[in-house]
């Protein structure tokens, strides 16, 4: 099989292992394309894609936009803060108005979990979820697993710990699904107040001690504390969080092995990781950003191939 089992990318939950491998193999080719002197291919010249961002984003939005442009698609950018959403328009009305302009594909980020799923049930276009609340962020998980595969040769059997605010993180959930599908061993680590109650049901280990988690893993994926999603206080202070769960050079040096450090961004330097770690040779944060473009090109290309002309 060389085609995806789905027509939309709503979450990793709906993909199978074969889908992930197809996406990675296609991304390998696109990584070659974006490193050529001319980084553009004409495949999607008759496809129009709308990027709907109902929540702030820098990296994901730019990454999607450049991926679409590298594939020669026409691109519409929409951000909720400058739109009629502020005047009370519903999501379906907004999207249907955009679709009337003959748009084939929607890339959407939304603060509410399930927004992409809801949209795919009500509108006739290919939907890509670019993050829905604290639910899923499938393209981030794909680029994270792709980066591990690139660095370590394979994801199967590798030990990956996700450290930080697991409770509010869509990156954590999507990563758990993707890593488990690919055969990795997954652990989550953070203060108990930021670990969801039944997370072990997903087949992941739970650890509250940072040093133990780091000594166990091959890869540490550091997450930001999502203050914007917190209505109550989950830990006494940022300083205390940083002392307990912040990754510093002395901690990294004290480990008995070399580990890979990942971060989906944006980084709060000095909170979850220090600048020294973020800029060290162990960190592959900028590789993740480059791989993000190749992965998004692959997903858009594979889903667009299912839109009949």
């Amino acid at each position, binding site marked *: 099989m*060389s085609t995806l089992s789905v027509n939309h990318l709503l979450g990793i939950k709906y993909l199978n292992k074969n889908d992930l491998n197809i996406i990675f193999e296609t991304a390998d*080719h696109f990584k*070659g*394309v974006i490193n050529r*002197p001319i980084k553009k291919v*004409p495949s999607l010249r008759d496809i129009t894609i709308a990027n709907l961002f109902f929540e702030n984003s820098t990296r994901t939005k730019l990454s999607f936009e450049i991926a679409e442009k590298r594939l020669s698609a026409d691109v519409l950018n929409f951000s909720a803060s400058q739109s009629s959403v502020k005047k009370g328009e519903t999501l379906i009305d907004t999207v249907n108005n955009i679709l009337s302009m003959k748009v084939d594909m929607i890339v959407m980020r939304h603060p509410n979990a399930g927004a992409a799923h809801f949209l795919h049930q009500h509108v006739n276009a290919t939907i890509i979820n670019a993050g829905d609340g604290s639910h899923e962020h499938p393209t981030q998980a794909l680029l994270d697993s792709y980066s591990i595969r690139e660095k370590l040769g394979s994801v199967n059997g590798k030990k990956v710990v996700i450290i930080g605010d697991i409770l509010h993180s869509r990156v954590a959930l999507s990563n758990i699904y993707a890593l488990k599908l690919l055969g990795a061993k997954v652990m989550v680590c953070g203060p108990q107040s930021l670990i969801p109650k039944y997370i072990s049901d997903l087949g992941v280990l739970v650890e509250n001690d940072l040093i133990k988690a780091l000594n166990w893993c091959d890869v540490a994926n550091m997450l930001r504390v999502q203050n914007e999603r917190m209505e109550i206080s989950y830990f006494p202070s940022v300083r205390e969080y940083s002392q307990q769960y912040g990754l510093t050079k002395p901690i990294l040096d004290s480990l008995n092995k070399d580990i890979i450090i990942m971060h989906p961004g944006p980084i709060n330097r000095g909170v979850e990781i220090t600048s020294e770690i973020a800029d060290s040779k162990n960190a592959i944060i900028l590789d993740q950003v480059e791989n993000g473009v190749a992965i998004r090109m692959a997903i858009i290309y594979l889903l667009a*191939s299912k839109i009949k002309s």
Partner: protein
Amino acid sequence: MSKKVLLNNKEVNIILHRLACQLIEIHTDFSNTILVGLQPRGKYLANRLKDLLITDYKIKNVQIGFLDITFYRDDFRRSDKVLKPSSNQMEFIVEGKKVVFIDDVLFTGRSIRAALTAIQSYGRPISIELLILIDRRFSRHLPIQPDYRGRQVDAIEHEKVIVNWKESVGKDEVYLIKQEL
């Protein structure tokens, strides 16, 4: 379904030598020439010609690349077949170079059109030529003709030309398959 052999092992070998000699006639020492095999099937022919040029005709400097044209094709979303890319190995810039595209069968000409667009990603070549083992005339959709051809074949739409190589199936052979209507 019937199968007719168009070229046997010996005939393929003779044609390869002739094509190599024709290339030498135009490109002499190949110092400013790059052979580009079109993926996936042009790779075998390109490699074979490169080996002949080096071993039998003592050409020292044969540069070769393999170009994948999948993302440049004009039938994306137009057929049920999924377009699967092959590996792309172009380790050089073609700016100011003489490029020779190499493929096994020239049919509609659409792959060559895609290759003409794809090669632009690597610079502006001074010239582009086309070398083909089998030229299926009367089936072109575009005004594209080869500069070097192994054998011209009159095949109609429902007939299929199959090129087998030692490297992939154990022997060199070209045959025509006729499907019953």
